[in-house]
């Protein structure tokens, strides 16, 4: 106890504190020129500030690049998904053959067998295995993509069907085109302000600009559309029905085995039922509603247009 008291003391709370003030004399600390350090400080904060600034601009950039990223993710998703398939379903489909991929030991065994004979069947196996591996890769890519999208706040990505993804993608494209359009319009507005005398011409030019960019956007649409004939091709009709709109599926015969087609947007269904594509009527219900089918002649699709 006495020894301890020599090296330190107890404070009011009973905490033992070493009296080491004298012993701790660090040459390195002594060597530090504190005046210099103080001099450096504003510099360092100065270097920090632009960093922070770049951070915030990064966030702004994020907003624009985020959209581009999301669009990219959607596009690669569309490559993997099949028509009418949700992401979750696709993952299930692709993960189905996982068991066919041989583990290392199985592969080794197969090699042994191969030396034994029956090379034809082995090759056949190999093909299946290769396919399974490719599917596995696709599945991993898909899960990666959906994970990324979920991190960006798109929580229902797993339940999103192919058609909706393609639709969202198209909308995003249109939106980005629109933003470019507004910039173009602003520019032409500026022109108008500058020369009042020629404002008519200026307007015409603006319209031309618009037309041109519309053409461009249509081209873009055509590019997206290459894989989805099910979704209405004309951009305007699809743009009218909002994302939250009802999707439909239908079958032509009232039997359990009849093939269910869809999903289709309300505007598409409305068009078909108006122009007589459905003939005397097909049986429809809301997409994935699991409810009963109703005759299209009794459904008023106009009611479902928001």
């Amino acid at each position, binding site marked *: 106890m006495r020894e301890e008291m020599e090296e330190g003391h107890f404070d009011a709370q009973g905490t033992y504190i070493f009296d080491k003030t004298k012993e701790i004399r660090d040459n390195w600390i002594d060597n530090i020129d504190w005046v210099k350090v103080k001099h450096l400080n504003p510099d360092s904060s100065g270097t920090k500030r632009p960093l922070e600034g770049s951070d915030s601009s990064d966030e702004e950039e994020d907003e624009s690049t985020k959209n581009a990223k999301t669009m990219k993710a959607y596009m690669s998703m569309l490559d993997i998904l099949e028509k009418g398939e949700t992401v979750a379903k696709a993952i299930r489909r692709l993960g189905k053959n996982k068991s066919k991929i041989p583990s290392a030991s199985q592969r080794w065994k197969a090699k042994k067998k191969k030396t034994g004979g029956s090379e034809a069947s082995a090759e056949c196996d190999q093909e299946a295995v290769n396919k399974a591996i490719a599917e596995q890769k696709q599945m991993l890519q898909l899960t990666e993509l959906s994970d990324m999208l979920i991190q960006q706040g798109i929580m229902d990505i797993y339940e999103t069907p192919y058609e909706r993804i393609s639709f969202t993608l198209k909308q995003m494209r249109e939106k980005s085109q629109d933003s470019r359009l507004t910039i173009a319009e602003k520019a032409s507005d500026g022109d108008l302000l500058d020369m009042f005398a020629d404002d008519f011409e200026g307007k015409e030019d603006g319209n031309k600009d618009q037309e041109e960019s519309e053409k461009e956007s249509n081209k873009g649409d055509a590019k997206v559309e290459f894989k989805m004939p099910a979704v209405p091709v004309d951009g305007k009709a699809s743009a009218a029905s909002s994302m939250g709109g009802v999707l439909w599926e239908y079958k032509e015969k009232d039997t359990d085995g009849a093939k269910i087609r869809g999903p289709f947007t309300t505007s598409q269904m409305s068009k078909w039922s108006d122009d007589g594509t459905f003939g005397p009527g097909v049986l429809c219900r809301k997409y994935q509603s699991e409810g009963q089918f109703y005759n299209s002649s*009794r459904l008023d699709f*106009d*009611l479902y247009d928001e």
Partner: protein
Amino acid sequence: MSYMLQHLHNGWQVDQAILSEEDRVVVIRFGHDWDPTCMVMDETLYRCAEKMKNFAVVYLVDISQVPDFNKMYELYDPCTTMFFYRNKHIMIDLGTGNNNKINWSMEDVQEFIDIVETVYRGARKGRGLVVSPKDYSTKYRY
């Protein structure tokens, strides 16, 4: 099961229920709690009520206790279900010839919800008459 659904005990309450609902369909079942047809219908209504609470509200009216509407709405059937939206009676083409009301009991929950949804969407678009998704002319003959 009907005890979970709200009863309206006089004409004023019925009027208020229809008047005060701003943006939901008011579904009223006229009949008697002890009537077997009503019991079936009430069961369906009970199971629907929660699912369609966003666009519809269900009330039960005893036509002996509240005879005020019997003449106006011709409530002579054991069980009658009617739809109102913003103090307006919404008619439905059910294929039966009587567009004013459903005067039988329905058992299929989803089927009934689909009807109410159609009523709701139609009424919101200003329609006084909507077409029910299903044609009941073959199933129920009059």
